[in-house]
């Protein structure tokens, strides 16, 4: 397809890879799980010289949702009046006692996969006698879609629809990683699609306060290699700036219409528990009071319990760039995409799922 194939040109990939070098060990974090998968699918890791190490960041929305929130979702889904709608990749995520939405469905809960939150709203309009709940999961990439769906629900006065909101924010998570004493990241490959919404300004603190460079990147092989080259050049020249390699869709100010929808429908929570990163202040959205009638947390009692991850699972370390998936004892044995223990093995954006699919086992 146009504007995809050109960025996969083997000749361009080879030329870019040949130009990469660093005179010391350099640790770069790709923030976004979409980048993690692109890197392994295209074998970009095998093209980099040994001194350049890529570590995987927290940008996998499914991965960072803690188990307690899965239990809350399951408890809503198990109510007889509820049709629980979700993106497909949340269904296999195990909660406490290893119960997932998929298992709840097998036991009789009405759990349905949707492509878009607007599809969930359509289900609500077709089922006036049922309560339809959408599992809102995702960064600022997905949150505007949910915001617009809630605006639409209010406009159409759809009263049997609500959202269980777990939308998280990318910048506070990056700050938590930068503040963590044991993570030494030299530079960041900035997320592409989330930046179409928020723009590149929210990353500027990484340069001004932490002195680390950021290059926002697209998802094709040449995009990622150009981003790596840009980071290495900044490090060599002692610069720390936000550069935008993905200018074909990312603008510095982001998408004003999407940002306005976020502003109207959501409020930032005081803090939110992230898997692996713990509670991070002002790192997630809740539904604003003006839309409180469509907030599933107002409408249903949820257990709201905090549940520790299984001891054997190292998702938390993987999400902070502290461990490679194959360093986890249960990787590929007790934890596989078919029967996952941790979220990083479930999601199509999870680092463990990428290592498993593309056989990076050592």
């Amino acid at each position: 397809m146009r504007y995809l194939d050109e960025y996969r040109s083997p000749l361009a990939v080879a030329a870019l890879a040949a130009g990469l070098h660093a005179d010391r060990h350099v640790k770069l974090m790709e923030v976004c799980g979409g980048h993690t998968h692109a890197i392994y699918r295209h074998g970009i890791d095998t093209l980099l010289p040994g001194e350049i190490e890529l570590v995987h960041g927290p940008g996998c929305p499914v991965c960072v949702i803690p188990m307690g929130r899965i239990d809350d979702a399951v408890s809503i889904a198990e109510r007889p009046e509820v049709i629980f709608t979700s993106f497909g990749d949340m269904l296999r995520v195990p909660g406490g006692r290893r119960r997932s939405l998929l298992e709840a469905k097998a036991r009789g809960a009405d759990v349905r996969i949707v492509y878009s939150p607007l599809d969930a709203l359509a289900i609500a309009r077709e089922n006036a006698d049922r309560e339809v709940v959408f599992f809102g999961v995702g960064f600022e990439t997905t949150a505007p879609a949910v915001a617009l769906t809630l605006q639409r629900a209010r406009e159409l006065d759809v009263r049997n629809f609500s959202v269980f909101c777990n939308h998280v924010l990318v910048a506070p998570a990056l700050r938590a990683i930068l503040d963590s004493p044991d993570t030494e990241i030299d530079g960041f490959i900035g997320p592409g699609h989330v930046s179409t919404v928020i723009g590149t300004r929210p990353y500027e603190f990484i340069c001004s306060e932490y002195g680390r460079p950021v290059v926002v990147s697209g998802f094709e092989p040449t995009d990622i290699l150009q981003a790596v080259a840009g980071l290495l050049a900044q490090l060599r020249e002692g610069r720390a700036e936000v550069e935008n390699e993905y200018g074909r869709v990312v603008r510095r100010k982001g998408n004003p219409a999407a940002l306005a929808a976020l502003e109207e429908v959501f409020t930032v929570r005081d803090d939110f528990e992230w898997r692996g990163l713990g509670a991070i202040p002002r790192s997630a959205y809740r539904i604003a009071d003006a839309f409180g009638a469509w907030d599933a947390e107002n409408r249903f009692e949820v257990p709201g319990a905090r549940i520790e991850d299984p001891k054997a699972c190292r998702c938390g370390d993987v999400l902070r760039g502290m461990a490679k998936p194959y360093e986890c004892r249960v990787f590929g044995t007790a934890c596989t995409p078919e029967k996952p223990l941790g979220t990083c093995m479930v999601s199509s954006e999870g680092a463990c799922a990428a290592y498993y699919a593309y056989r990076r086992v050592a």
Partner: protein
Amino acid sequence: MLERLPDGLARVDFGGVRRSVSVAFTPEAQQGDWVLVHVGFALAMLDEEEAQATLRLLGEAIDAELSA
């Protein structure tokens, strides 16, 4: 994008698969424009000039490598 539809929607061709998506966040998108779609919403329009500029850089990288 193939065509605008009522209610802030548009029909988009995804390399063969066609579906209607919301263009609420890209109100200026017109027939023939390339859009980036996520969960049924067009989040950005592709800036063809920027895309060509990146492709020119790639071309230069190839030329430099071939002549090295």
